[in-house]
């Protein structure tokens, strides 16, 4: 039970991943599938940031930091990688939404199964 409480952020990440996979696998609306991909992305970003957390650490910024901050800073590399991942996620989401708009204009529906049927 104690380890469950300690690892609460990782468990939240696991729950978010499960929700994201459920959304991608069982929903038929394209917009909902995009929302599922977004949830997955948020879960992965949270996981990377949570891996780099040091207990009681401060943000890795020297500007007006508290006095004890230098010896106890959160790891900066996971945060930098998360920054990269967020921007790429925005780009991918914009691309997916553009294709969703395109599909809606072409087929008149956002339902994945109907789109497949119309293709023949």
């Amino acid at each position, binding site marked *: 039970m104690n*380890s*469950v409480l*300690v*690892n*609460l*952020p*990782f*468990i939240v*990440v*696991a*729950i978010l*991943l*499960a929700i994201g*996979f*459920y959304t991608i*696998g*069982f929903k038929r609306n394209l917009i909902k599938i995009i929302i599922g991909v977004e949830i997955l992305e948020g879960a992965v970003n949270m996981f990377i940031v*949570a*891996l*780099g*957390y*040091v*207990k*009681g650490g401060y943000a*890795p*910024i*020297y*500007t007006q930091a508290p006095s004890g901050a*230098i010896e106890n*800073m959160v*790891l*900066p*590399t996971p*945060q*930098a990688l998360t*920054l*990269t991942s967020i*921007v*790429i996620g*925005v*780009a*991918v989401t*914009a*691309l997916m939404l*553009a*294709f969703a*708009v*395109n599909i809606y*204009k072409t087929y008149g529906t956002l339902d994945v199964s109907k789109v497949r049927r119309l293709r023949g």
Partner: protein
Amino acid sequence: MRKLLGIIALTVFSIILFLTAVHLRSFGSPPHAEMDKYFIEHAQKEASANNVVTSVVFDYRGFDTLGEATVLFTAVSGVLMALRHYGGRKK
């Protein structure tokens, strides 16, 4: 039938995810991080920036950021290309 199979697979996957999350290295104690220690100690001298995250993004891993900017550029041109027929005049 397919839906039932999917639900079973998702349940098994979720249980595995949950067990992994519980048994991971405990939150707040990252593994050995010599690289991050180096960044924290030398960022002010080498990159002369107070913000260590920015100095990692733009200095130590600048090439990575260049690729990221390229991805953004590609995505924007992809969006413009995908919606070209509907948008009227391009921007």
